[in-house]
């Protein structure tokens, strides 16, 4: 009913208006509407006051909805965390894990009861709720801030969660890329280059957390922003009540040397075997602060290159070539050090083509001036974005705090649009000369090493690729030269002697090893038996249940699992035959294996010879023999699975002497999944029956 009335009034109105507007019935749709007169953009009002303890408070009134948000930002430059990286994060986690007045359960319940949000981070706090709950909210926020109770029990919980989080990151190519990027750009001696690891987590203590809290959570380095359905007059007494007792103290600020961009462009690869996409970053550290004269001009320059949907990177890599879902660049403004990065996530096959296009776009910005219409479009875009950002009242509060934090002129934001409008094509050109440095970049690619290595070398100034692990540590750097006199034959002979010598080895008629591990909380044991000359059996038990068994009786290979029994054939049969051969290494030559000594590289911190082993059927694997101990320390093989090629690596971490022969007693397997196995028993010449090597 109501709808109908509105409708008929409308039709009438619409009629007259089209008439009035045109006179001519046919609309020419090719005429693009012109913008109406530009609306005035006004910044909201900010009020402020300071508590005697130094806490500076900004209030932005916004009465659209009956909500309010309180945030505290600390203006601090903490010292390095060194061996206990993650301390600051855990400190803030612990602050919301119970206070001297409330257990964790009580605190959690009190926050949820009023439907509020209350979180802490290493540089501040945030709390929000409906306005009608704000007294309770402030009581809770104040309790968290002033009376944290750092308890060992809670620290242990946070550590467990953090370790699980670290485990998750190992499979997330973006997380790996972010981590390694910060190490390569900033280095371990800069706070931004410090990474939380399993090891660093183990070093974090209650004392360290408490020390961080005492050192940095101080009112004299804090700014509070209040945004919402409140007035200054009404909140001031509340702030005095709840935060007046916050004790001030001297806060030490640490300065760091400015990290430098690489002298020449290098290529760094983090291997993610089986990845279906490569994560590319062309990146380097930059000295660019928000209070620099360059800041606005550089922002325009970066927006042209890679921010927004019609930026050059996006249009080129996505709309022109279809290489990616999105390609972007970023250039931030940070007080300590900023970072430039051009990013794309692309399918493996076009990794090099994508890099070619990214580098071409960087160079174009440095060699050609930006056309006026493109520049005007970008300036309009940034102007519009500025207006859109004002929709959120928190933006105004952020402006106020930025002016304090970054020592900006008081009228910085009031003049922002004027300064933006004044940026010229020459300015952009100058900014590109200064901040776009394709010849001083780290090209970081997280992806499948096997697919990438050769294609990427041309992008490196030295034509070498550096390989890193997921924490940004160098792995398998360029192989060192092989000393004179060392050949594949001597490496194998040395190994045979190191594990006991040919005579002792030939005395071994059978051997059985039981190794244990835990997998997803379940006990797993793996028993392997071998009988000269070529019988082999392996069974995997979960608890008391055999979940998998493989045997080879010298002729036939069989496999039994939950899915049933089957014969092993093809590649699998060749593999198990090799496994079954007693003292295989000693017999490589006799059996027709080809050995290529490739060089020396470090395995788990110790130099080892790299030996490529090619089976008579042409299957390749790689083995590493330690230069010093002569023992085999690693082997690796590439296998093909549904997810694509995958590298499986076994590290032999410790050997144990049984009857004059050394057998691996601790091994670590990595690849599709990781586990560490420890030998419970190793028995030699116990007379294993032939029936052990068959499945009926």
């Amino acid at each position: 009913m109501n709808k109908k009335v509105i409708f008929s009034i409308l039709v009438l109105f619409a009629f007259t208006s089209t008439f009035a507007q045109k006179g001519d019935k046919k609309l020419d749709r090719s005429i693009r509407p012109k913008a109406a007169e530009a609306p005035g953009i006004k910044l909201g009002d900010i009020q402020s006051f300071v508590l005697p303890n130094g806490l500076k408070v900004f209030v932005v009134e916004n009465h659209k909805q009956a909500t309010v948000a309180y945030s505290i930002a600390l203006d601090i430059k903490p010292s390095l965390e060194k061996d206990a990286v993650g301390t600051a994060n855990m400190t803030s986690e612990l602050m919301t894990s119970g206070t001297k007045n409330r257990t964790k359960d009580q605190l959690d319940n009190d926050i949820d009861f009023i439907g509020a949000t209350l979180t802490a981070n290493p540089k501040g706090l945030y709390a929000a709720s409906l306005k009608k709950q704000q007294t309770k909210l402030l009581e809770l926020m104040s309790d968290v801030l002033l009376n944290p109770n750092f308890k060992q029990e809670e620290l242990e919980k946070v550590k467990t969660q953090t370790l699980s989080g670290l485990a998750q990151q190992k499979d997330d190519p973006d997380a790996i890329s972010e981590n390694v990027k910060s190490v390569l750009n900033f280095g371990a001696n800069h706070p931004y280059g410090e990474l939380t690891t399993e090891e660093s987590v183990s070093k974090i203590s209650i004392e360290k957390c408490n020390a961080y809290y005492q050192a940095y959570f101080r009112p004299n380095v804090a700014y509070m922003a209040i945004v919402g359905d409140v007035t200054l007059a009404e909140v001031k007494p509340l702030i005095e009540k709840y935060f007046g007792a916050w004790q001030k103290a001297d806060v030490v600020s640490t300065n760091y040397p400015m990290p430098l961009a690489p002298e020449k462009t290098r290529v760094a690869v983090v291997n993610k075997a089986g990845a279906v996409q490569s994560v590319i970053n062309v990146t380097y550290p930059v000295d660019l602060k928000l209070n620099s004269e360059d800041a606005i001009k550089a922002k325009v320059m970066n927006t042209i290159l890679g921010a927004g949907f019609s930026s050059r990177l996006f249009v080129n890599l996505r709309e022109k070539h279809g290489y990616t879902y999105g390609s972007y660049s970023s250039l931030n403004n940070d007080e300590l050090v900023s970072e430039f990065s051009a990013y794309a996530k692309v399918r493996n096959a076009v990794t090099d083509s994508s890099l070619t296009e990214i580098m071409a776009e960087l160079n174009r910005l440095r060699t050609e001036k930006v056309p006026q219409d493109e520049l005007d479009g970008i300036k309009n875009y940034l102007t519009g974005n500025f207006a859109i950002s004002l929709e959120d009242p928190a933006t105004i509060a952020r402006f106020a705090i930025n002016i304090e934090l970054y020592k900006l002129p008081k009228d910085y934001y009031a003049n922002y649009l004027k300064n933006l409008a004044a940026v010229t094509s020459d300015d952009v050109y100058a900014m590109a000369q200064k901040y776009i440095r394709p010849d001083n970049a780290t090209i970081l690619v997280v992806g499948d090493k096997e697919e990438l290595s050769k294609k990427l070398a041309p992008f490196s100034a030295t034509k070498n690729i550096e390989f890193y692990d997921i924490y940004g540590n160098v792995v398998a750097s360029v192989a060192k030269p092989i000393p004179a006199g060392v050949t594949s034959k001597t490496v194998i002979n040395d190994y045979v002697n190191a594990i006991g010598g040919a005579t002792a080895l030939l005395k071994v008629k059978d051997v059985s090893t039981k190794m244990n591990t835990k997998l997803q909380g379940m006990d797993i044991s793996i028993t392997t038996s071998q009988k000269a000359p070529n019988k082999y059996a392996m069974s995997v038990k979960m608890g008391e249940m055999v979940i998998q068994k493989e045997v080879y009786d010298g002729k036939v290979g069989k496999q039994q699992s939950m899915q049933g029994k089957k014969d092993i054939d093809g590649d699998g049969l060749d593999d198990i035959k090799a496994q079954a051969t007693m003292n295989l290494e000693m017999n490589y030559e006799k059996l027709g294996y080809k050995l290529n000594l490739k060089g020396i590289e470090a395995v788990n911190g110790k130099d080892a010879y790299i030996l490529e082993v090619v089976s008579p059927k042409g299957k390749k694997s790689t083995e590493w023999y330690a230069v010093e101990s002569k023992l085999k320390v690693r082997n690796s093989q590439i296998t093909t699975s549904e997810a694509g090629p995958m590298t499986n690596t076994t590290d032999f971490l410790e050997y144990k002497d049984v009857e004059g022969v050394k057998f691996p007693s601790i091994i670590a397997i990595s690849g599709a999944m990781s586990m560490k196995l420890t030998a419970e028993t190793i028995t030699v010449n116990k007379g294993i029956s032939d029936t052990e090597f068959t499945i009926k």
Partner: protein
Amino acid sequence: MKLKSIIVSGLLLGSSYLSAQSSKTTPSNTVKYSQYELPNGLHVILHEDHSTPIVAVTVLYHVGSKNEDPMRTGFAHFFEHLMFEGSDNIKRGEYMKLVQNAGGQMNANTSFDRTFYYEILPSNQLELGLWMESERMLHLKIDSIGLETQRKVVKEELKQRNENTPYGSILNEAFGHAYTVHPYRWTPGGSPEYINKAAMSEFIDFYKTFYVPNNATLSIAGDINVAQTKAMIEKYYSTIPKGTKAIPRPTVVEPVKTAEVRDTVYDNIQLPGVIMAYHAPAQGTPDYYAMNMLATILSQGKSSRMQKAIVDKQQKAVFAGAFPVPSEDPGLTLVFGIANMGVSPTDLEAAMNAEFEKVKTELITEEEFQKLRNQTENDFISGNLKMAGIAENLANYSVYYKDANLINTEIDRFMKVTREDIQKAAQKYLTKENRVVLYYLPKQE
């Protein structure tokens, strides 16, 4: 934790044009609006707010993945990409540039039930936004280069979302296992294999069927003059012809489940996950509100039952929670648990089941109920500060419930839910027969 955001964003959106953020908002302060329909069937909703000089121009087409041919899954989402290709008067590659040069932002997303496009512009560019949306509603133009390029782009998007993201396939697997006949059995991403197969004629047919004014809602919010805006809408939209084809809507009803479905998915992950998908009532029904509040009790906030018991006390998971997926036809409530290091999925599942048993057998306390109502109220009121969210909510309420005013009143439906309703919902829906259980395990040889 990053995982949380992956799961939640995957849930809310299905898939989107340019990694969009969805805003789930519901207000309490009255949102005033007017609405009417053009003779060609275009539904128009206008909300006037002068606090910031910007305007959100949005168009909702009532077509999503559930309207697709099972042999062409992913079509609606792929078509969303094609809608940026241009029109008779907008050249290929110009669409995004025009918005950007006008100082605006834009994006689009596709769900099971609808496809949504928006531009946020300085308010003096309102007419540009209206013209652009009318251009692609009237005469979209797709050339073969554009088609081929978007085929590649969408394949990369799917890889990025599903394959190269740990747990990225959860949504596909959950819906794939839960439905046998209803088109929710595939997700908006669909299968990449079909993207190559579709011919140009199929796209044209899809466009003429679904992208018509009588299947669209134009919702505008912001710094507008209502009379002038109506005149502009008349100018650009009144001549767009009404669609002549019948708009197919699936009528098939998923049969009631009689047995639990269990399966294992191997993924590139380190921590095993337990994913449960419970069949749940369609949005807007009384049971839907009860289930929604049940999910809040289970997982919103650190004191919620699953978080407190499973994550905090028992340390069995890094993350545990329940989320209803809002959908036009009866949908799913998804429950996730990601195991802590060294915890087996069976242990985690037992802990999750124990929480469900508790809520089925014991009525929640008055105090917990009050907390739940406070949380619900807070969520409702905290929304709707932004124009784009208001425009989208108005359109959603109007299309799904034929009542845009729910933007102001839906909270009443939540407040009607009693403690007993919640217990009943748990007993009715959180049953073994009604669910799918998936174990996500690390890939191994």
